């Protein structure tokens, strides 16, 4: 029991931190520009693919450094030549634009890399067990993922709170007009933040690619979950996104690891149902089965009962 608990926690932590790397960029972009970037997870996918291609020729570590840079530049270009144009037409048009972008990136990835799964591998240096507990191994690569994520957050935190740019960004989040009036080039800041946000997604893609497999559907798989996180956490709240990321990560890994079901719950109350009952599917539910829908259930509940999310202040 204890081993399940520990490993579920560790895996939840890995997933949660990875999710936060995506969610933090998305949140930054949303707070500054009011745009929920539907294509955010697509940049994550691009990160994985670029890193894969680079790793074929120059090895994993080159990919880790250059793939996010390429993705960031691409993101900045998208902001400059696409999003800025649509901006005048309002938030719905922006949301629709990023939706279309997600669609196009998925098709473009299939165009350039094909439909099959790529064998993007973690580097050999990290192919050992970091530790063994109760006979189960915890791979060094997962440890590396945790280290990278935490390292990036500390860096991000320092930039945001200590540097001049960070202070301008923080001010632009809450008072974009004032910042513009103070003579700062807000469009440039927007472009930069969009670039950095997408580059962060790129990093997530690079390190997640080998574990979560690199295939054209990887953006769709994670995309809506990241959306769920920023909404649950409260749109525009970094702290909220952090809590929600860990929450969803842990929720999913625990739900998968457990084998509790509806039956056990009903047994607890001494109720039993015949197996040929019309609602047998409902009584037979197990937690691993419902794991994929839990985030969405949470999303809908949060939106109904607390539309601002856990830590959000903004109402529309």
């Amino acid at each position: 029991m204890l081993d399940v608990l520990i490993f579920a926690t560790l895996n939840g932590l890995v997933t949660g931190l990875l999710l936060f790397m995506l969610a933090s960029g998305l949140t930054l972009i949303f707070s500054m520009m009011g745009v929920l970037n539907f294509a955010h997870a697509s940049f994550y996918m691009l990160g994985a693919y670029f890193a894969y291609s680079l790793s074929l020729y120059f090895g994993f570590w080159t990919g880790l450094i250059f793939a996010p840079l390429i993705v960031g530049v691409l993101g900045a270009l998208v902001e400059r030549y696409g999003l800025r144009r649509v901006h005048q037409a309002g938030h719905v048009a922006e949301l629709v634009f990023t939706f279309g972008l997600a669609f196009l990136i998925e098709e473009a990835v299939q165009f350039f890399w094909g439909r099959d799964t790529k064998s993007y591998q973690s580097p050999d240096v990290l192919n050992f067990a970091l530790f063994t507990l109760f006979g189960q191994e915890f791979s060094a690569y997962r440890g590396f993922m945790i280290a990278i994520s935490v390292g990036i957050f500390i860096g991000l935190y320092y930039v945001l709170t200590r540097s001049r740019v960070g202070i301008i960004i923080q001010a632009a989040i809450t008072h974009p007009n004032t910042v513009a009036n103070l003579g700062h080039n807000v469009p440039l800041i927007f472009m930069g933040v969009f670039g950095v946000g997408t580059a962060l997604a790129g990093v997530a893609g690079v390190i997640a690619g080998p574990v979560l497999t690199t295939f054209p559907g990887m953006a769709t798989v994670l995309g809506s979950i990241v959306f769920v996180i920023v909404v649950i956490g409260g749109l525009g709240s970094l702290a909220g996104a952090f809590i929600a990321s860990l929450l969803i990560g842990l929720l999913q890994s625990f739900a998968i690891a457990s084998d509790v079901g509806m039956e056990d719950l009903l047994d607890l109350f001494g109720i039993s149902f015949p197996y040929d009952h019309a609602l047998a599917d409902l009584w037979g539910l197990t937690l691993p089965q419902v794991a994929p829908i839990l985030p969405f259930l949470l999303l809908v509940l949060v939106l109904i009962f607390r539309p601002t999310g856990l830590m959000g202040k903004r109402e529309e």
Partner: protein
Amino acid sequence: MVILQTLVKKFGIWVAYLAVLLLLPQLFDSILAISIYNQMAIAIVFALSYNMLLGQGGMLSFGHAVYFGMGGFLGVHTLLMIENESVYFSVMWVPFIGGLFGLLCALFIGSFSTRKAGTVFAMISLGIGELIAASSLIFVDFFGGEAGISGDRTFGPTFFGVDFAQNIQIYYLAAIWTFIATIFMYLFTQTPAGRMANAVRDNPIRAEFIGYSARRVRFISFCAAGLFAGVAGGLFALNYEFITEENLNAATSGRVLLMAYIGGLGYFIGPIIGAVLLTLMNTLLSTYTDLWLLYLGILFLLTVMFLPRGFAGFIMMHQVAWLRGRLTSLIKPYLITGLPALVFLLGVVTLIELIHTEDETLSIWGLSLTPASVPTWIVLIAITGAAFYGIRRSLPQLREAWHAANKPDGEGN
């Protein structure tokens, strides 16, 4: 005579619409053509219902396929019930049953999701869409798991001897249903609830100050949209006799958004154009190239960026010039820019296909090109580049001609 004229003016377009729907099989009657017509009919109803949400009500939904799929699932279950003789009526009523179920789902979900428009609504629709798509793999009895469920439409009483076994019969039935659904959706826009949907889309706060609860107005549009999406789902069930989780997931929701947007939001005819266009791309273009989704994505992004009101909006843009009798002055500049634009388009498509192909020669536009030959690439890139330059050069003239054609007569500015 005058009466006749007003009659033509009032109902002419509807008679023409019905005539087109009913005469299409006379034009092409191959199995493929009929199957395409059927898909078009379904897509038209579905896209029009989506436009009730986004175009007319200002609600961006990423989960509209839920009501389509639910209508479809109940449609197939109805077919099964007709087969088991637990109910006794003609299969022609299946779209109606689908519509009722779509309405029922919309009544329930809309009761909490329409409280806000904008991003919150979009997120709830996304969440519910994913929730139901994921649940459909769990509740196997109703949804049939990944394989979906299938039925058979040849049971039940016939309608004056018509048993709806053949696709062509289904097409005529679908045409009638599409016609009826289109009329009702159009009439809805002419009612107080329909007009207030526009008002709430434009300015929800002001709408509350003229006596209307924005939430209630949205709820009514939402339910109507659910109803007609359900009808489309019922038509789907009838046409294909099976339905799977794919028909209510995010991809289907996305496709209907694309249809309505490319066709043109805010114009009643827009989604019809979009539905026809996308169905043709889906069925015909896909037989020529397996890259059609890539082209669709490019087309969609270009539409969002340059034609925010879609194809219908592009056509309507010319209304002013036409009213002022200056539409003809645009023909020449259009041709001057259009020609290089066409060459550019063909060049880009050829390049994309050339990159993609794995064969030794690529047959396209009657040419046969060799991907391995360097001169082919150079010539192609040169032509495409020249065409792009041509567009850039001629664009200012077009812009000028456009302003001249739209300038009000006499008035200063």
